[in-house]
């Protein structure tokens, strides 16, 4: 008896110990150092470039023969012929990182905003401006009027061999990011230029937030070469769209903004020849997108007056085997192993890749794949909590961006979002968000020194922002509209995903949705009526039976 209970007890103890972490983390999941881009994103499957018939072969131009030894030299050659491109691009968000919101008047852009991921590019340009379409932005002193610093190649290279590295060196632990790169063949790249393909856009936009699909949830490396089931428009065996097939524009200004979204497109859905520089579904599919030959389609067209197309046609995001970060917790950042920063890769995503669940430089992460979006009425205008906004953390999570919308403004649609959940540093004394100094070789940079207090103090001081001297962690939500990864029509939401009690649109106001148990009072009254009738009939029948028995006696 005693032996039996012992044999049971030992494995139980082991199980308990391992669940408490006493057995330690499996060693193979740990990776030392803080490098973010040991393998560059360009190693991902490249989609072959469209062979566009062009009126010019750049390989034959004298001006592009070179030799070139730097990016700005190439840019000067480009601007020598494209003499308006420089000033056009100088107004583009990809260059300015600034955006003045036309509705709210807020000053936005990457130069200003604080997000729920690495928090701020501002002050960390040495690292973050790898995705700035320019050369050499290291800090505040970057000259935005020097047009030769525009990076033409990052968007127009078609060889796939062009790359960018951080503009300044960080802490020595980050040095790996500069190693093992073959030198860029400037002339060859310059002669290859063409219209941007998804390889160009994707190398930044698929990796927003510091890694594959970390930020958006609907933009990942899976879109480099997606099957039809992942993206009906971009599939190589389907329509094979590039990003600019929808994000159309002229003169280096193109459609599509997450600050001011086109939720109801009145402009792009016009007749041929009318302006359609919008990136909306309606600009191709119109406002009555379903064929008008059956009653279901007529009903669906009515739905299009209430719902964004994406709501039904992107049933889940983070599909295709690449996960998105759903929760980012800075509270645990800065832990060391053997005196060194490290990563723990304990999430294995659909395509087999291991993703970091902990990074000393960033904290803890949770991932999700094939996720159901969060739905809400949205009028297109995003409002932001900036560094200047004072909030009250006791009132629950702070919304880094928020929006309005409703059934009656004629402009809103019920829209899908990825809702990002973050615990991030804030100024406990002033109740504001903080700029953190993450990147640099100095002693204040968090990525290498692991001291949040120093990082915040330096980050705020650099921009003359008041800092009380005491930081805490605030819970935040941010909302990322879901527009990409449109599924084939067979995968669109079935009616009873929403038309059911506890359906997807539970809690959405201003619409009548049959099947959701909307007016249960009426149903109960009706059922009561039916039961009362049945009871009455039963009583009547019983009385007849009893009385006929009595008569028979």
């Amino acid at each position: 008896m005693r032996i039996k209970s012992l044999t049971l007890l030992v494995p139980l103890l082991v199980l308990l110990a391992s669940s408490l972490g006493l057995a330690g983390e499996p060693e193979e999941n740990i990776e030392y150092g803080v490098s973010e881009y040991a393998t560059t994103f360009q190693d991902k499957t490249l989609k072959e470039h469209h062979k566009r018939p062009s009126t010019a072969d750049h390989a034959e131009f004298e001006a592009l023969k070179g030799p070139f030894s730097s990016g700005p030299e190439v840019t000067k050659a480009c601007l020598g012929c494209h003499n308006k491109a420089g000033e056009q691009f100088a107004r583009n968000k990809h260059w300015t990182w600034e955006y003045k919101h036309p509705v709210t008047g807020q000053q936005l852009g990457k130069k200003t905003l604080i997000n729920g991921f690495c928090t701020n590019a501002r002050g960390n340009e040495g690292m973050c401006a790898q995705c700035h379409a320019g050369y050499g932005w290291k800090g505040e002193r970057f000259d935005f009027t020097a047009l030769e610093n525009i990076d033409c190649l990052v968007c127009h290279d078609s060889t796939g061999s062009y790359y960018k590295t951080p503009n300044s060196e960080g802490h020595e632990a980050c040095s790996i990011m500069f190693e093992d790169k073959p030198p860029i063949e400037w002339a060859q790249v310059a002669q290859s230029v063409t219209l941007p393909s998804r390889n160009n856009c994707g190398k930044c936009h698929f990796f927003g937030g510091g890694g594959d699909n970390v930020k958006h949830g609907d933009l990942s490396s899976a879109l480099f070469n997606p099957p039809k089931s992942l993206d009906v428009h971009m599939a190589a065996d389907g329509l094979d769209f590039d990003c600019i097939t929808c994000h159309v524009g002229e003169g280096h200004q193109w459609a599509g903004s997450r600050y001011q979204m086109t939720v109801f497109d009145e402009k792009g859905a016009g007749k041929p020849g009318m302006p359609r520089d919008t990136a909306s579904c309606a600009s191709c599919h119109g406002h009555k997108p379903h064929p008008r030959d059956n009653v279901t389609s007529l009903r669906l067209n009515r739905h299009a007056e209430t719902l964004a197309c994406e709501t039904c046609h992107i049933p889940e995001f983070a599909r295709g085997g690449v996960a998105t970060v759903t929760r980012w917790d800075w509270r645990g950042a800065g832990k060391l192993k053997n005196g060194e920063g490290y990563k723990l890769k304990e999430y294995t995503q659909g395509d087999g890749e291991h993703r970091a669940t902990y990074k000393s430089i960033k904290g803890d992460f949770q991932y999700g794949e094939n996720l159901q979006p969060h739905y809400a009425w949205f009028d297109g205008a995003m409002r932001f909590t900036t560094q200047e906004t004072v909030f009250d953390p006791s009132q629950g999570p702070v919304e880094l961006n928020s929006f309005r919308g409703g059934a009656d403004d004629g402009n809103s649609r019920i829209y899908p979002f990825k809702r990002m959940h973050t615990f991030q540093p804030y100024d406990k004394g002033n109740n504001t968000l903080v700029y953190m100094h993450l990147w640099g070789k100095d002693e204040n940079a968090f990525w290498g020194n692991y001291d949040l207090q120093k990082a915040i103090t330096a980050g705020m001081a650099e921009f003359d922002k008041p800092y009380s001297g005491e930081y805490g962690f605030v819970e935040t939500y941010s909302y990322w509209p879901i527009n990409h990864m449109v599924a084939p029509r067979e995968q669109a939401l079935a009616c009873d995903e929403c038309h059911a009690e506890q359906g997807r649109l539970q809690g959405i106001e201003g619409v009548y949705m049959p099947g959701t148990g909307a007016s249960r009072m009426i149903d109960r009254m009706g059922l009561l009526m039916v039961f009362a009738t049945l009871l009455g009939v039963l009583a009547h029948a019983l009385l007849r039976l009893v009385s006929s028995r009595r008569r028979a006696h």
Partner: protein
Amino acid sequence: MALHKIQVFRIFERVWHWSQALLIFTLLFTGFAIRDLHRLIDFQTAVNLHTLAALLLLAIWIFATFWLFTTGQWRHFLPTRKNFVPVARFYIHGIFKGEHHPYTKTYRRKHNPLQALTYLLLKTVIFPAIWISGLLYLAISLGLFDTIPAPGVGLLADIHTIAAFAVLVFIILHVYLLTTGGSFVDHVRPMITGYDEADLTDEEYAYLKQDEPGKIQD
């Protein structure tokens, strides 16, 4: 006056009755699915079947209304005080005493006064309520009208649902009453064969004998 077995329900009425019954059952079943009172079929199938059944029933109704008014059969549904009290008294009293049903069909009155009143209410209150709310709702959902605010649509749906429950109550009573004043089978048979006993005046009998001999089955 004498009892004769005559045709009380013509073929049109019988087809009308049974196709209407089938469609109403379909409508109740699918309607309750749309209302999420059961999940025996999925929402989309329920909506499409409900729409189809409603449009079919509407077509039958257009024919029936035309038929009722052109043949003069609508008079059977006029309310009458004659025999009303005895019939009502029978259901609440006489039926327990083993009395016989006080009403016999006549050539001009194939329904007893309670029946006639019930059918009249059905045709003038419940069915119009269900048709008007349902057709408005359908038109809105198909985009034939500009959309109206959600509470308006919800109200239409509620009216429609209440009327549907009223129809179900009618069906329960309708079926139960077939067991009263005679056997269930005796009451269902005329709606299948068309023939039932009716009290005919000598003149009516002579007329039928002369002009429509097929209607008498003595």
